[in-house]
């Protein structure tokens, strides 16, 4: 079981992720609605895994990833992306993203990725 922080500006996506992860035995320790809030909560809560949406207001997922990796290079960050964000994905890989999830969500993919991260 992993303690997870969900960072996504979309309530719909946060709820979908929470439902899938909780029903597979993981604990959602908190949610954040933009990258800035996500970095603050990462520092305060030290989650096992962070899911980080790429497209967000205030501070986007790519910048938040860089800040989180600067705080803790060993942190486990799963980037959440829609199709068609290839250049952003390359930027995320360079910044140290550990895994990617694609919207719309596929339950088994989410479970496999988070289980892999938490083992």
């Amino acid at each position, binding site marked *: 079981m992993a303690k997870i922080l969900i960072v996504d500006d*979309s309530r*719909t996506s946060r709820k979908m992720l929470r439902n899938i992860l909780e029903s597979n035995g993981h604990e959602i320790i908190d949610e954040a609605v933009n990258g800035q809030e996500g970095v603050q909560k990462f520092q305060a809560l030290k989650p096992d895994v962070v899911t980080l949406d790429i*497209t*967000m207001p205030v501070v986007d997922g790519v910048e938040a990833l860089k800040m989180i990796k600067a705080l803790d290079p060993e942190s486990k960050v799963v980037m959440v992306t*829609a*199709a*068609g964000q290839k250049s952003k994905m390359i930027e995320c890989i360079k910044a140290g993203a550990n895994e990617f999830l694609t*919207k719309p969500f596929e339950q088994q993919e989410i479970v496999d990725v988070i289980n892999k991260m938490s083992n």
Partner: protein
Amino acid sequence: MFDQIFGNYLVKTGRITKEQLSDVIESESKVRVKLGLIAVAEKLMTTEQADEVNNLQAIRDRRFGDIAVEKGYLTEAQVGSLLKKQGNIYMIFVQNLIDKGLMTLEQVDEALKSYQDQQGFTHSDMDDLVSGDVDRTVRLFLPSNTELCDKHCGIAIRTFLRIINSGAYVSKAYLTDTLKIDNFAMQQLAGDHNIYAGFAGIGNSLLTIANPFADEEFETVDLDALDAVGEFTNCINGLFASELGNEGVDMDMLPPAFYEKASRITGNQFCVFPIHVEEQEIFFILAIDSIISVN
């Protein structure tokens, strides 16, 4: 899709009633089986393979058969054979009209000719419509003002049919400077082009997207419902940006914007693509390299 379009034409012209159309469409769904289910029943694919292809369809703008062939689960010939077994939905529709005693074949032919005349479709267009092939049908309703616009609208309706409601159908898209609406969820794509794309509705019509996509029971189009519509829009725009990316066109998607109490979209010849679902009408809005504003 043409079963719904032609069926609604028959209702509007008084040839059958709305209730009779619902009955015919319901009968269709009992005999129309999804391609994946037929493939599993025929032992050509496993359930896991069919599920995998169905899931891939949600993130790739491709048909079930095309993905199954690409993955090596089916051959082109097997897909052809499965499509034959699945049957032409328009032909099933006509057969049901006749079997239920609502129209004779001669009356259907006469109505089809009237529809063709009213819409100004060519014989070749009519062949596309009665083929039962969704892509060939949708092509005739696209605005055809630019290739980009057709591509984006095509992805929008195909994704809608796959993820939201397979019983939806479309009216002819058009260009306008103004559209009266009540609510709107949209996303801007910036880069080599500047694009605004999203869904607008009147009253609670956008719930036809929000509820199935979020798997919730919203009662009104509030910000949470619009968030779900925005996420669905994001999926469509992602597929579109992905296609453009393959052609070397770079686009960046910005966070969606929501308008809970709007009255009008204004702009310079933006595209409105009407989609009909569950007796409601919603609009796919698309402005390419022009600005729209919402009041």
